């Protein structure tokens, strides 16, 4: 597996396999899930057997089926969140960089304030006020997360807007949006992509944590964080039920991290020196 002439190291290949597997499950899971999402077919926390590979959950639903459906909810929400957050952060970050002056000052100070509240706490405040539904959840996490993208995008943008071709575009009288889209963005894509991966991990853990606390995705949707919460008391009987969804969360994060580590290392290399690496 190669990307832009870079061969992926072993760890990155493992990472990509994990990510591909999870994405496939998220997209096509319901087609091969053994049972229905809310179909109760066994006893509470029934132990794993031939029919139910991972046993049953707290009301006798097949754990594996719940995990497969949960992939769609959890990964879907995390991905949607990251896209919205990237859009907000990049747009405002580049706007601040291109316009400078008071626009930059106002946006940067606002971001400073948002960043001085811990993200989980800010999300809890907003969710507590608005109640938890999937659109609110996505928007909340996106807004809470976007300041970090903003900082990176602004820093990248600052280095690009001083270059001659941006100056030329401005002289031509191009508008703000055009300058951002055609001059700044193409030159900042590489670092933004690895940031996207990191933000995805963060948001994914964030959704899981909120659902685990019971203020994220609400039943009846299967969702990994929520599944850990629902099955938590099984642990007192020495059963592993809450660990399966927790493992799924951990596996995906490790996978994405492995890929991102590789992308970051490509990014750090001088582009001419690919051959000997």
């Amino acid at each position: 597996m190669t990307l832009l002439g870079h061969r992926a190291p072993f760890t990155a290949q493992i990472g990509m396999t994990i990510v591909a597997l999870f994405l496939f499950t998220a997209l096509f899971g319901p087609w091969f899930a053994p049972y229905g999402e809310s179909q109760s077919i066994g006893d509470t926390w029934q132990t794993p057997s031939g029919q139910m590979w991972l046993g049953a959950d707290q009301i006798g639903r097949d754990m594996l089926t719940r995990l497969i459906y949960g992939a769609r909810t959890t990964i879907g929400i995390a991905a949607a969140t990251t896209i919205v957050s990237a859009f907000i952060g990049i747009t405002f970050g580049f706007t601040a960089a291109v316009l400078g002056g008071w626009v930059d000052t106002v946006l940067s100070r606002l971001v400073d304030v948002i960043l001085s509240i811990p993200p989980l706490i800010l999300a809890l405040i907003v969710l507590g006020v608005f109640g938890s539904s999937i659109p609110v959840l996505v928007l909340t996490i996106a807004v809470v997360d976007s300041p970090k993208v903003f900082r990176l995008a602004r820093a990248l943008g600052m280095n690009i807007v001083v270059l001659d071709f941006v100056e030329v575009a401005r002289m031509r009288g191009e508008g703000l949006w055009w300058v951002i889209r055609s001059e700044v963005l193409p030159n900042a894509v590489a670092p933004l992509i690895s940031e996207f991966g990191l933000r995805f991990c963060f948001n994914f853990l964030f959704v899981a944590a909120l659902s685990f606390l019971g203020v994220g995705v609400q039943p009846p949707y299967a969702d990994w964080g929520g599944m850990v919460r629902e099955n938590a008391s099984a642990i007192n009987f020495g059963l592993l039920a809450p660990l399966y969804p927790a493992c799924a969360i951990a596996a995906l994060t490790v996978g994405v991290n492995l890929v991102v580590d590789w992308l970051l290392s490509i990014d750090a290399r001088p582009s001419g020196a690919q051959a000997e690496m």
Partner: protein
Amino acid sequence: MLRLIATRFALGILTLLAVSVLIFICTQILPGDVASAVLGQQATPESLRVFRAELGLDKPAYLRYLAWLLGVLHGDFGKSLTNDRVIIEELAPRFVNTLFLAGYAAVIAVPLAVGLGILSAIREGRLTDRLANILTLIAISVPEFFVAYILIIIFAIQLGWFPSLATVDSDMGLGTRLYTAFLPALTLTMVVMAHMLRMTRNSVLSIMSTPYIEMAFLKGLTRSRVVAFHALPNALGPIVSVVALNLAYLVVGVVVVENVFVYPGVGQYMVDAVAKRDVPVIQACGLVFAAVFVTLNTVADILAMLANPRLRRRR
């Protein structure tokens, strides 16, 4: 010097004010308002009017903010909407519990993380370092509750050494308290240690690539001596701020861990309030967490200034 610290301190207070405004705005931009949200089905125009007056919702927003802020400064966070209790009375003991847990974890985590971070910088690229690297990557990637449940399975269920629920109360002696809260503290330690270790290692290593370190090596000094006497004094500044930043992170990690172990702290109080949509309690807890976070960040900056003279110059 003193002036710089005072400036940073003032900036911290200003940030705190801005944060309080933000929290207030967040809780006031409800579609509809708290009164109709709380009364729900039973809302008649009359009861709504009375309830609004009781909450002060009939006054303009900036007056309500000032009243709230003034109350907070006097330790008056208002009353809970769900059980009508005075918030500060519930919050104060929980806050002590949370600080106890975070402090407990910090006492274990800081020496361990800094020690291991330096060790893995000394042994860069060798087995110890690579092992530490892989372990920290895993610890950073997995959610807090995963670590917590693994620890519960091992230490509470299999071995039976520690209780799986950390329900401390005020009658407990220090020893029992430490024993009861051991598993949550250990969870927090594992979570926060990974970050701290990685950052300590990196800040030592970034100094290792400077010319004066190369000079020390050329003099024929051993690697451990170079790290301990040449690199470490300069890495101290970054390490101190890393520690303080991670303590700030600890305060957030506490929320999830408290909920796993049913530990009676502010995090659990806040999550309960969010589930019940008890806005005054959410405001109070949010402000407390933000205040601790801002304070620790300010302390981190000031300590970094004290440890590194180069930061004292005005930018």
